[in-house]
């Protein structure tokens, strides 16, 4: 289990991470979200042992992070961390050896992963000669080459087409099923929702939202009702508890303050003609994020 306990990190007088705590259990995928500059990279760097926390502690399976422990961690950075002049094989041998693997194991595992991601023909090609998407595949391969106990994925789907996103998702899920602890960070909330049962949202180094996604959504009082039929936007806006109404091509999206106001909306709608849809939906993670962080994550 990865345990981040009351970790604070200062850069001079600037507090980059403020009393951050979370745990990631074996076989679980944990989402760490935040806007740019929220403190995610600093947190990842502390988990990787690249930075020492100013206070608090980080342990992996009870051990303080050191160079013996980092051999069991895989890290996919947001920026490309590949030596572009090397070939795919050289790159994997380089990072694999630094992870304590021997050449034979590296080659075996590399062949297996290249096959899985459909890039076997690039084994002896220089990384700079590959497309952005293929470079991302190689970067992902280098991160999982050592079958890490802890895998940190910072924007893993960057530069990938939908087909390859599916390949990555499959592999991440498989790794999780095999027992790897995974920390996942992405700007794409639909991806986070898909993977992470548990997450934390940080802003300015502080946790503003934390817990299981199911509970977070349940506890998030604002709901959305999707309605199809002969109704008027102006009438809906007059109803108690209605925050906003978005008129779409064939339906209305009604935002309400909480579950309590579903009935009053239903009372208004039930007498209207041609009502074919009335669905109460959970808020998206994106909505929750925007609400909690106070600004769009996509900015």
């Amino acid at each position, binding site marked *: 289990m990865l345990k981040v306990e009351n970790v604070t990190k200062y850069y001079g007088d600037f507090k980059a991470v403020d009393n951050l705590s979370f745990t990631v259990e074996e076989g679980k995928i944990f989402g760490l979200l935040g806007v740019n500059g929220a403190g995610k990279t600093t947190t990842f760097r502390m988990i990787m042992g690249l930075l020492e926390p100013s206070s608090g502690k980080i342990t992996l399976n009870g051990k303080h992070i050191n160079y013996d422990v980092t051999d069991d961690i895989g890290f996919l950075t947001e920026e490309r961390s590949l*030596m572009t002049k090397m070939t795919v094989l050289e790159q994997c041998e380089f990072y694999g050896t630094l992870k304590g693997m021997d050449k034979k194991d590296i080659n075996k595992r590399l062949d297996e992963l290249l096959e899985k991601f459909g890039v076997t023909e690039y084994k002896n090609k220089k990384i700079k000669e590959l497309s952005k998407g293929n470079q991302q595949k190689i970067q992902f391969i280098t991160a999982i080459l050592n079958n890490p106990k802890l895998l940190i994925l910072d924007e893993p789907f960057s530069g990938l087409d939908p087909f390859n996103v599916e390949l990555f998702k499959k592999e991440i899920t498989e790794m999780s099923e095999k027992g790897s602890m995974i920390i996942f960070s992405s700007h794409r909330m639909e991806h986070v929702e898909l993977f992470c049962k548990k997450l934390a949202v940080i802003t300015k180094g502080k946790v503003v939202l934390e817990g299981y996604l199911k509970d977070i959504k349940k506890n998030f009082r604002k709901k959305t009702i999707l309605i199809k039929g002969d109704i008027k936007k102006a009438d809906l806006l007059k109803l108690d508890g209605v925050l906003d109404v978005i008129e779409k091509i064939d339906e209305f999206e009604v935002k309400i303050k909480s579950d309590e106001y579903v009935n009053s909306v239903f009372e208004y709608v039930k007498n209207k003609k041609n009502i074919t849809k009335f669905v109460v939906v959970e808020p998206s993670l994106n909505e929750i994020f925007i609400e909690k962080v106070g600004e769009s994550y996509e900015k």
Partner: protein
Amino acid sequence: MKSKLNYLIGISLKRKIKTKWFVVANVLIALVIMAAINLDSIITLFGGDFNKKTTIYVIDETNKSYELFKSNIENATLLGMDKKDNYKVIKYDKSIEDAEKKLKEKKEKGNIVVNFKDDKETTIKSIITTKSFLDKTDYTILNSAIQNTKVALATMESGVPNEVFASINSSAKIERVVLDKDKKSAEESMDMIMSTIFPIFILPFFMLTLFLVQMIGAEVNDEKTTRGMEIIISNVSPKTHFASKVVAANLFVLLQSILLFVYGVIGLFIRKLIGGNNIANGSFDAVLDMAKEVLKSGVGEKLIYIVPLTLLLMILTFIAYSLLAGVLASMTTNIEDFQQLQTPIIIISLIGYYLAMMAGVFEGSIFIKVAAMIPFISAILAPSLLMLGQIGIIEMVIALVLTIVVIYLLVKYGLKIYKAGILNYSSTGLWKKMYKALKD
């Protein structure tokens, strides 16, 4: 961690050596060195009048100048101005008009007519006739021989007895006494010799320093700009990473020095095969002759301690340069920044190079003696001054100790900067960050 260090050293060397640019650069360097050693043969290969023999036709209207002049020409060549065999002095009995006609008809160069005439004021007068311009060496030799002929004739005509005349003409005996027991008189002529030989040895040192600094800068920046550094440093400590760069760069320098030496040996072997030194004053053979002179002059005994001390100082200086380059490279965020930052290193190295060249000219300069003990430039300067006898072993040892102190400081404080620098990607507040790293 030790095996990871060895691996990093190996991969650094492999990345440097297994490139086509390393091969191309070495092929070019090898060609340049071999060509330089065989430059005279290359020049003669393309043709030219390099083996010209000068024939001097003497029309002696004074009837007393020919023998003296012939002897003085031989003496002049003995002084090393040119080879004796290159000059042939022939007495010409016909008129000057005939001689001029002959000169015009002859296709080959190197024919000179010297016409000696009596002169009341200057004892003799000479007219030198050639088809075209005289070359510098011929003119110097002729001038010297004619001048000596005139002095000899004037002395004889003044009624000086034969024994006295012989005494006047004989070379003066010079005996040297040096009171300083540490100085051997044979070393006195070393200044000129060393000023010629030493640049040949210190130029590769300067070149290798550049290779070393550039290799570390390029590698650290490559890893930083690709963010590969994050992955590397999460698996090996900055200390191990720093050590791997320093060791790899120094091993590369060692390999490159061996290659330079091999290219030199091949060049000499080619020279031997093709029988070089076609030009009379072949510069390379002149250098070899000088080197032989140096060894003969008793400096050979000195070399027993000069060579190991020089090698030790050079190795330590390379280590110091690599540490400094590593620290500076860690602070930069791209190769362009590093290229700017390496300029002071190159200038420091250049200062050492020029001071070493000037050491022979400004003998006894306190400034140069003090500079010989300053780390980074001492490796170039101190050995040359030691060889010239301008400094002793004590100064050399001080230079060694100071370099070790600099290495210690670079390891102790430089490593702190390196640790903070390699994961820093912004130049904003750089000095503040580095100062903070030093304080931590």
